[in-house]
């Protein structure tokens, strides 16, 4: 029973984490990048580079990677621990596993494999190649950022649905 309560707590906190992460990405997808695009290229690059370096602080990293860690723990808990009510019904497993996988792939993996390399290229931009790199960045980084926004929102919804269903299951099974 303790494990079940811990799993529910992990889902609760991970749902909050996914929801907030979704909002961080949503800001850039819905208006920040469009605003920077409207500036002269050199100014846009400078502002985005400043934003990218300011983003490397503990609070944002704890939000993104702390949520990722919770997702990994939930997958392990659901798949390998015995005696979980979640295991009794496939419906109950889809939420935590599905939500976790969507977040890990759609937010963390996309960040590491797509957004970070683009950030590094932008940070290394010179006066000569800046405008070209900025043009690519505005297209590709924004595209992958849409993916992160949608993935985090979906993961948040799946985790909330899982919480409601699992709690209902626990009540019924008592």
């Amino acid at each position, binding site marked *: 029973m303790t494990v079940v309560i811990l799993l529910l707590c992990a889902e609760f906190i991970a749902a909050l984490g996914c929801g907030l992460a979704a909002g961080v990405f949503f800001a850039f997808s819905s208006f920040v990048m469009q605003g920077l695009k409207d*500036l002269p290229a050199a100014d846009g690059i400078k502002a985005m580079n400043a934003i990218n370096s300011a983003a490397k602080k503990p609070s944002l990293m704890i939000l993104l990677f702390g949520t990722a860690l919770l997702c990994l723990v939930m997958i392990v808990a659901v798949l390998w621990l015995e005696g979980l009510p979640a295991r009794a019904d496939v419906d109950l497993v889809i939420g935590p596993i599905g939500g976790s996988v969507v977040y890990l792939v759609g937010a963390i993996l996309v960040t590491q494999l797509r957004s970070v390399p683009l950030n590094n290229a932008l940070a290394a931009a010179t006066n000569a190649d800046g405008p070209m790199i900025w043009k690519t960045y505005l297209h590709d980084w924004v595209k992958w950022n849409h993916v992160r926004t949608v993935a985090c929102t979906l993961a948040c919804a799946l985790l909330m649905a899982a919480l409601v269903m699992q709690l209902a299951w626990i009540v019924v099974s008592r």
Partner: protein
Amino acid sequence: MDQLFILLVILCALGSGAIGGVFFAFSNFVMPALARIAPAEGIHAMQAINVTVLNRLFLGTFTGTGWVSIAAIVVALLRWDGLGSLCAVLAGATYVLGSILVTMRGNVPLNNALMRISTIDALGEATWRGYVRDWTKWNTVRTIACLVAMVLFVLALLLPQAP
């Protein structure tokens, strides 16, 4: 718990989480970054951002969450069901007051003042420093309000079923 209530509350939780995350980004790293570059560059970037924020997708999410919050409050009051309903009412009120009202009374007047900076002289720079300080303060209030609202919305889903 009826399905309409669950649907409204899940939408509110997603909306307040998304808007809370937007505000978190600004308090946590966007404004510190814009404050770090030259004042003229910071001012121009924030002025551009304040123009593009007025788009259908963002405003729809921001005010839409407010309207759905009000709907959730009404449904909770009409079909009162103890602690879960109480959480939904408190969550909706927290979002409407702490996110929308604070924006209208705190941030929008500051944004309007920022748009009026035309020449970046000593006065413009002082206005910018004041903007960064005051806008970020109100923005942090909005961030916390959205986070509290989201926690309460999720609790509103869970408490009616708690064993």
